[in-house]
C-alpha cells in the first residue's frame, strides 16, 4: 500500500470521525464542512489567508521532516522557530538598510538563529550521545525564557509590556501588491520563502551527495561509519539545516503574518510541524500539501464557528484524529489486507 494513500485514508477517517462528532453533538455535518471549507477557500482573500496560515506550517513541517529523513527526531522546532523569529525581529528593529537588503539579512538571521538553536542538541548527540528529543525540548524552554527577558529589556513596545515594538514597514515581508492581488489578505513574501525552501530541500535530499550522506547516516550509522562518512559532522549538519528551516518559519510568522513578537507564547506551529511531517510522509512535496490542508482547517474553523453553532474545537479534534490515524497507519494497512483476503475468500466461494 502506497504511503501517500495511507495519508489520504487517514485524512478521510479523520473527516468521517469529525462528521460523527458533529452529528453526535446535534449539528449538521454537511453544513459544518461546507462552512469549514468555505472559510478556508471562499474568496481570494480567504485563500490568501489560508496560504499565509500554512506558511509557517510548511517550514516547520519541512524542518521536522528533514530531521526525520536523516534519522533525527527534532521536537524543538517551536524553540528554533521562536529564536529564529527573535533574531529576525532584532535585526529588523536595529538595522537601517535598504528594504531588499534588510529583508535578506533578516531572513539570514532567522535561518542562522534557528540553526544555532538546533546545532546545540546536534552537537550533544554527536559528541555525547544525548538524545535529541530531550535536548531539543530543553532548548525550547531556553528560547522561551531568553525571549521572555530580552524582548522587554531591549525591544520593548511603546504600549504593551509583553511584546516587542512594531516592525517598521520596510522590515516586514508584507507587500501591498500581493495583498491587493488577494483582495486584502495578509499573505506575504513568507509564502514564497516556504515554496523555495520546499524545492531546495527536495533537491538537497534527492539529488546531492550531501543528501545521500545525511540520509545514509539516518538510516544506518554503522554502515555510514564503515563507508567513511563523517557521521558526527553529518548529525550536526542535519540539525543545522533542520533548525534553520524552523527559523525561517519564525521569520514568516513574526515578520510576515504578525508585526511584533509576543513574549510568553510558545509558537504552536512548532509542534504542528510534527503532525504536518507525519501526514506528509516526510517528503517535501507531501509536507507542502499537508500544511496547506492544515491551513484550510485552521483558517476555516473561525468561519464555521461564526456561521453555525459548531464549536471551533471540532476542527482541532479532526486534526487530532487525522494524526492518530496517520501515526497508526499500520492499522489501516492491516485492515486493507484483511479486506483483501476476505474478498479473495468470497471470490473463491463464489466460484
Amino acid at each position, binding site marked *: 500500500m502506497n504511503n501517500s494513500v495511507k495519508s489520504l485514508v487517514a485524512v478521510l477517517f479523520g473527516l468521517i470521525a469529525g462528521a460523527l462528532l458533529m452529528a453526535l453533538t446535534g449539528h449538521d455535518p454537511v453544513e459544518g464542512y461546507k462552512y469549514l471549507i468555505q472559510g478556508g477557500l471562499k474568496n481570494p482573500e480567504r485563500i490568501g489567508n489560508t496560504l499565509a496560515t500554512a506558511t509557517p506550517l510548511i517550514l516547520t513541517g519541512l524542518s521536522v521532516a528533514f530531521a526525520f529523513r536523516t534519522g533525527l527526531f527534532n521536537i524543538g522546532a517551536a524553540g528554533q522557530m521562536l529564536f529564529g523569529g527573535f533574531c529576525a525581529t532584532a535585526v529588523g528593529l536595529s538595522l537601517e538598510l535598504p528594504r531588499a537588503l534588510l529583508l535578506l539579512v533578516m531572513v539570514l538571521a532567522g535561518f542562522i538563529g534557528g540553526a544555532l538553536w538546533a546545532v546545540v542538541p546536534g552537537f550533544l548527540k554527536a559528541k555525547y550521545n544525548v538524545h535529541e528529543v530531550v535536548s531539543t525540548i530543553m532548548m525550547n524552554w531556553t528560547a522561551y525564557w531568553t525571549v521572555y527577558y530580552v524582548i522587554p529589556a531591549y525591544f520593548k513596545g511603546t504600549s504593551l509590556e509583553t511584546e516587542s515594538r512594531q516592525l517598521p514597514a520596510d522590515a516586514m515581508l508584507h507587500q501591498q501588491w500581493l495583498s491587493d492581488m488577494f483582495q486584502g489578505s495578509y499573505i506575504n513574501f513568507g509564502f514564497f520563502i516556504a515554496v523555495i525552501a520546499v524545492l531546495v530541500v527536495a533537491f538537497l535530499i534527492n539529488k546531492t*551527495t550531501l543528501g545521500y550522506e545525511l540520509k545514509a547516516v539516518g538510516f544506518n550509522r554503522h554502515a555510514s561509519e*564503515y563507508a567513511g*562518512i*563523517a557521521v558526527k559532522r553529518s548529525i550536526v549538519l542535519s540539525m543545522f539545516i533542520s533548525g534553520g528551516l524552523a527559523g525561517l518559519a519564525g521569520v514568516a510568522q513574526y515578520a510576515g503574518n504578525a508585526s511584533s513578537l509576543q513574549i510568553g507564547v510558545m509558537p504552536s506551529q512548532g509542534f504542528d510541524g510534527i503532525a504536518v511531517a507525519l501526514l506528509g510522509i516526510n517528503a517535501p512535496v507531501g509536507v507542502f500539501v499537508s500544511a496547506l490542508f492544515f491551513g484550510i482547517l485552521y483558517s476555516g474553523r473561525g468561519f464555521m464557528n461564526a456561521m453555525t453553532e459548531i464549536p471551533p474545537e471540532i476542527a482541532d479534534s479532526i486534526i487530532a484524529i487525522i494524526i492518530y490515524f496517520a501515526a497508526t497507519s499500520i492499522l489501516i494497512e492491516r485492515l486493507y489486507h484483511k479486506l483483501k483476503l476476505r474478498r479473495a475468500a468470497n471470490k473463491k466461494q463464489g466460484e
Partner: protein
Amino acid sequence: MDYVVEMVGIRKEFPGIVANDDITIRLKKGEIHALLGENGAGKSTLMSILFGMYQPDRGVIKVHGKEVRITNPNVANKLGIGMVHQHFKLVEPFTVTENIILGSETRKFYFGLDVKSAAKRVEELSKQYGLNVDPYAKIEDISVGMQQRVEILKMLYRDAEVLIFDEPTAVLTPQEIEDLQGIMRNLVNEGKSIILITHKLKEIKAVANRCTVIRRGKTIGTVEVADTSREAMAEMMVGRSVSFKVDKQEGRPGNAVLEIQSLTVKNSKKVDAVKSFSLNLHAGEIVGIAGVDGNGQSELVEAITGLLPIESGTVSLNGKALNGLSVRQRNESGISHIPEDRQKRGLVLDYTIEENLILEVYNRPPYSKNGLLKPEAIRKHAEHIIQSFDVRSGTGGRSIVRSMSGGNQQKAIIGREVERDPDLLIAVQPTRGLDVGSIEYIHRRLIEQRDKGKAVLLISLELDEVLNLSDRIAVINNGELVGIVNTSETNERELGLMMAGYQKEEAPHE
C-alpha cells in the same frame, strides 16, 4: 512403528510466503535425526511449530502416537520436548544450578529455595550423561561449551525425552564440537531422541542416524545417513550438484601488502582485545585468521580499517603507515572490507541496491560531480555488478536491499568491494549463514582475487573455510597470535589446539 514425534503434512503460511508447505518428519525413539535445509527452507518455522510458538495451518503432530495440540512452549515442555537454543538463555551471574531450576524451583517450607537438593540432582544427571558440569560454578566463569551443556541439563532436569538442537556447533571450537557429539551419543544411548537442526553436512555424517532434507518448505526426503554421501545430501538440499573442494592453484605471493607490527587495540569496554599482534600479508596470497568467536578478530579488522583506534603498534599498507588515517582515507588507499555483519555495517538496508553499491564512492566521479549525484553512472555501475556477481532481486537495481535474501545481499557487498579493485581485500565471515550454492560461488570469487594478485585477509569462524581457502593460517587466541602455519602442513586437530591457546610445540601428547 513407535515414533516419538511425528509431524505430518505440516503447512504454515505467513502473509506473502508459505514457510512450510507439506512437511513430514518422523522421529524414532533413540535416534539422532538431522533436519537439513538451506537458510529460509523452513527449518526454524517447523521447529517453532513443534515447540508451540506457532500453530500450523494444516497437518498433524503426534507424540507417542497420540495426536496433540501444542499451543505454547509450556505444553511442549510437558510433552517432554525441549529445545537447546542457538543463543543461550542463561543468567550470567547465577550458578549453573540456579539457572537450571529457574522457572521450576523446588520450594522448601513454601518460601525457601531448595538449591541443595536441586544441585544434587544436577550432579547426578551430569554424571549419568557424561556432561561433567560443576553445579555451583557461575555461568560467567565457564566456557561457551560448558554453557551449552547447562542448556542441555536444563532440558534433562525437566525430563525432556526429545531434545531439539538448533545449530549447536556455531559457537564451538573443533574440540568442543567433538565433545558435544560424544554427549549427543550418550543421550541417545540413555534413551533420549534428538532432532539436530543444521546445514553442516559434516556434522550430520559424524553423528546422525537419519536425515530429513527440506527445500523451500517441502520435504524432499528422509535418508539413512550411513548409506548417503555428503554430495547426495547437498544435492537434495540445494536441488543441484555441488562441489565441496575449492579448486585452487598454488599461490604465488609477491611483495608485502599489509604489515601489522605489534598491534594493540582496545575494544569498546576499554580492554585490550588485540595484544601486540604481528602479521605480514603478501600480494597474491590468502591468509586466514582462525580463532573462536570473540578472540579479537573483529577488533583486529576494525583497527586495520580505521573503525577502531590503534592503541599502539603500526599497520601499514604498501609500506605506508595507516595509523591516524580516517576510514575514507584508508578506503581510498586501497583497502576493501567485506564486513562481519552485513546488515549492520555493510548495507544501508533502506537504500536501493544502486545506492548501496556506491556506498564508499558516491562522492567521486563518475558517480557525482560538484556535489550532485549522477543517476546514469550510478545505474550503470549497479547493472554491471548485478550482472557480474549474479545478484538477484525483485526489481533489479531499484530494489530496496531489505527485501533481498541474505545471500544476495552478501553478493552485492562482495561485488561492491571487489569492483573497487583494492590491493587488500579483507573478508570477514564472507559466507556466514549462506547456503551451499552461494558459499561455493563466493569462495571462487575470493580465490580469483588472489590469483589476480590481491592480498586477501580472511577471517572466519568456520575452520573448513579457512582450511579450504587460505595459503597460510594465523591462529588468534585471546587477542594474541598463537602461531602462523602453512595450510598444506597442518590439520584441523592442530589448529583446534592452537585456537584453544596451545602453542604449536606444547600441544599435549596423548
